[in-house]
């Protein structure tokens, strides 16, 4: 894919390197040439210094041939405006914006864009890991309406069957990490303290998971 990354800060440069290593043609655009210092010397993609809202720079970035664009500057307004242009003027398939300041999330949402909120996501992870709750939400996908949870088995679950924990029809979507082993579902699999369970379920199954978890906690 031809991917344009707008903004070459910590996130932009890391993303550009990652995309490039995955075999994509990457073009990084930033208003300040000094930002390109964030890229490693062996970076294979193209770099363009300039204002992404001018036709000249868009032309140099060959936006007509881009399949995807990520707007990841630290200006939430600029990210939204650039992404809107990429969609409306150049009909780029996959356009994603970074939300830098969660305060401006609603503003970006109003453009109907796919948003990745780095600060917001980090905050939820912190809250999750700081709490005693064994259940941690790792990922949600609004499009397919699925959620991935990480569940760390506390001591008192020791000896319980794994299937006691799982909502109906979810046994195919579970993986257990026990020390350095990866285990799959089995009817008779019993839990051990410290097991890390990864479970993918639909949004509808979330309340069932909470119920089962509460039963186990009350035991």
């Amino acid at each position, binding site marked *: 894919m031809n991917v344009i990354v707008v903004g070459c800060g910590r996130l932009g440069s890391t993303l550009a390197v990652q995309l490039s290593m995955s075999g994509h043609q990457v073009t990084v655009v930033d208003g300040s040439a000094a930002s390109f210092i964030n890229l490693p010397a062996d970076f294979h993609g193209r770099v363009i210094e300039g204002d992404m809202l001018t036709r000249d720079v868009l032309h140099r970035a060959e936006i007509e041939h881009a399949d995807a664009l990520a707007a990841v500057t630290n*200006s939430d*307004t600029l990210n939204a405006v650039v992404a809107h242009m990429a969609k409306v003027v150049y009909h780029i398939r996959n356009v994603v914006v970074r939300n830098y300041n969660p305060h*401006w999330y609603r503003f970006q949402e109003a*453009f109907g864009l796919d948003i990745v909120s780095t600060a917001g996501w980090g905050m939820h992870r912190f809250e999750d890991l700081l709490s005693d709750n064994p259940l941690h939400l790792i990922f949600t996908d609004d499009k397919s309406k699925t959620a991935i949870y990480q569940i760390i088995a506390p001591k008192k679950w020791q000896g319980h069957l794994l299937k006691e924990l799982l909502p109906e029809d979810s046994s195919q979507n579970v993986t257990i990490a026990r020390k350095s082993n990866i285990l799959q579902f089995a009817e008779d699999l019993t839990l051990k303290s410290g097991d890390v369970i990864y479970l993918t379920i639909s949004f509808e199954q979330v309340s069932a998971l909470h119920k089962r978890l509460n039963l186990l906690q009350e035991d």
Partner: protein
Amino acid sequence: MYVLIAGGEPVGLQLAKFLIAQHHQVRLIENRQQVLAHLHQKLPTEVIIEGFVTELDLLEKAGVRQADVLVACTPSDTENLALCYLAHELYNVPRTIGRINDPSHAWLFDQKYHVNVALNEATILAHLIEEEMSMGDMMTLLKLRRGNFSVVEARIPEGTEPVGVAIKNLVLPDQCIIAAIIRRGEMVVPRGNTVLEASDEVLAVTDAEGAQQLSELFSV
């Protein structure tokens, strides 16, 4: 009319003063402390709303839902574009006006971002300056419709073609009409049979092309 202005310097303040004098309801949003200090000296307190123009809560508090017009005239083109888009998309503001700071962004200021009227300051000013330079002794008194039409004043020098000619016999440009003549400090209402004299000052309403032709007609 309820007019919401985003950005106070230098355009927003002038516009707000002008609109208030005409008894329109005005709110002006600004976040720069330096500009705010200045605004508070020049405008009634209730007109000024402090904060970032892209904050939706603030726009709502400023009455964006009731606004008849949104004027986005901050020094940031990105903000101006975003504001026009959101004003229409989220709040159905019927008319949006966007200020273009950098002419290379002008191509974005249209329906792409729901901008109804784009004002390209640099281009308008450059256009006006160029016109003034080519006009010789003719003076522009007033610009109408973003500079497309103007009221001009020209003095008829001795020995030029119009001297001694009745207005009905004068070959005037198509888009041009003589509105008044000032003769020895008195106003003469121009009629078809009014004969022009040397040193008459002629006031005319004209388009840009007409002004050019008029200037040629009145030069030696």
